[in-house]
């Protein structure tokens, strides 16, 4: 059975410009969640829930960490939540990252608020003895977050569009420097994913997608993405958000 749960806000803090880290407590969710899944959060005054990826899972403390950027009113209100408040969440939603636990090295390539699920994944990969390399892209310096946390997982490259921090350019511009890997995982805006999958076309990889959701559980068909040219499709909210590179048409 799927669940709607009440999660308790344990902490909220702004970790980069307009970017918030929030820790939410709920035993069921913290137990069930895997990297790549998302929470579908209710925000007062809004018809539709807001999907936010799981950025970290603490099974002992029974908490989930999410990282989100303030985009519109929904994320603005979410950012204003105080610890102790309750948030209604449906989830964990969607399917997480699948991978061959025997691989040696994984490459994580994330852009902006596509980075959070990769952190959660990276931690799990490391726990399973898999080497991790990360390329993190941001628009500009004051948006950079979690650099240190990724460095603790492995070799980390930070790029900014405007060169104000780390390498200048896009995530794809440093992919040449990262060396070999067995599988890549990428999450970020569609143009970035298109560039990454094109560049790494011969490698095995997984990507995680975003789309405007309605139900978030697979019932309304708001979030489809073509899987072939014959009308085949996948639902991002329930078949995804993680897909094998090449499984869907970006």
């Amino acid at each position, binding site marked *: 059975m799927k669940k709607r749960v009440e999660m308790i806000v344990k902490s909220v803090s702004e970790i980069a410009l307009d970017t918030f880290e929030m820790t939410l407590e709920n035993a069921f969710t913290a137990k069930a969640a895997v990297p790549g899944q998302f929470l579908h959060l*209710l925000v007062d005054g809004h*018809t539709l829930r807001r999907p936010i990826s799981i950025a970290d899972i603490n099974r002992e403390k029974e908490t989930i960490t999410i990282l989100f950027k303030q985009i519109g009113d929904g994320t603005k209100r979410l950012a204003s939540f105080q610890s102790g408040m309750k948030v209604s969440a449906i989830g964990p939603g969607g399917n997480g990252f699948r991978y061959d636990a025997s691989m040696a090295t994984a490459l994580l390539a994330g852009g902006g608020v596509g980075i959070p699920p990769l952190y959660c994944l990276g931690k799990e990969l490391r726990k399973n003895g898999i080497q991790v390399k990360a390329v993190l892209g941001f628009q500009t310096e004051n948006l950079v977050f979690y650099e240190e946390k990724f460095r603790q997982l492995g070799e980390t490259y930070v790029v900014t569009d405007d060169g104000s921090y780390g390498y200048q350019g896009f995530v794809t511009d440093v992919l040449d420097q990262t060396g070999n890997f067995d599988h890549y995982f990428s999450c970020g805006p569609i143009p970035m994913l298109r560039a990454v999958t094109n560049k790494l076309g011969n490698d095995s990889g997984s990507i995680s997608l975003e789309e405007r959701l309605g*139900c978030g559980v*697979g*019932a309304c*068909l708001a979030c489809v993405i073509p899987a072939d040219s014959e*009308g085949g499709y996948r639902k991002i909210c329930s078949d995804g958000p993680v897909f094998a590179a090449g499984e869907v048409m970006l």
Partner: protein
Amino acid sequence: MTQLTVDLPGLMLKNPVMPASGCFGFGREYSEFYDLKQLGAVIMKAATGEPRYGNKTPRVAETPSGMLNAIGLQNPGAEKIIVNEVPFLAEYNVPIIANVAGSTVEEYVKVASLFNNADSVNALELNISCPNVKEGGIQFGTDPDMAAEVTEKVKASSHLPVYVKLSPNVSDIVGMAKAVEAAGADGLSMINTITGMQINLSSRRPLLANKTGGMSGGAIKPIAIRMIYEVKQQVSIPIIGMGGISTAEDALEFLLAGASAIAVGTANFQNPYACPEIIDNLPHVLQQHGFDSVTDAVGKGHER
């Protein structure tokens, strides 16, 4: 004991609450939240003659107290629905209503005939009001003659009771209702979504790929109530009411306006338990307002 049962053409409902078409798929997803046998009935996602992929994304946008959608009738086609979906729902022993869509009268008739021959489908909801496809759908829903024609032809091709789903995007909703009643409709389903648009300031373009979409949710409830109230005074076939229902109080408001049963659409997205919660709360809300049964309340918002 508060009586929740409702007896409609082709539908013996244990309660008047059903998920609205397109907001519940074919039930699989919500069956992971609760046991579907609690529902009064299930209205399936629209079916067309051939599989359809539907519109490009983005397909949904949020609006004040509502949302826009332009799914575009994506569905695997009536045949696959009958083979793959109906049997799943039938296991819950819940009345099944098939939502019938098309671009031409012939397509409507084809789909209706397919369901007519299918087991376990109890009634048809004739979707002459989908605003999100280039042809068909909405024209049938705004022209009383076309609406009457498609109703008549579908009635002739199927023994199943037909509930015609009316579009609110009309000058004269009563005229539409009377036209389909005269053409043989067994009931009405109202309202479908109201055509709207949202423009994205950054991209300077309509947010939905289809540009326009159908507005649903709380925002449209007063329009639904008004239309049902007006229609109730002029037709005698029963009405399945919908448009912004999210609580048992909303459901009672629809009953008072003249609906005999109600459907819940958008509310499922925010609250996957919307339907069972309404069913659970309805007896109390009815009693609180002096009603011993659902049928007691139907149309009681009208002057006597």
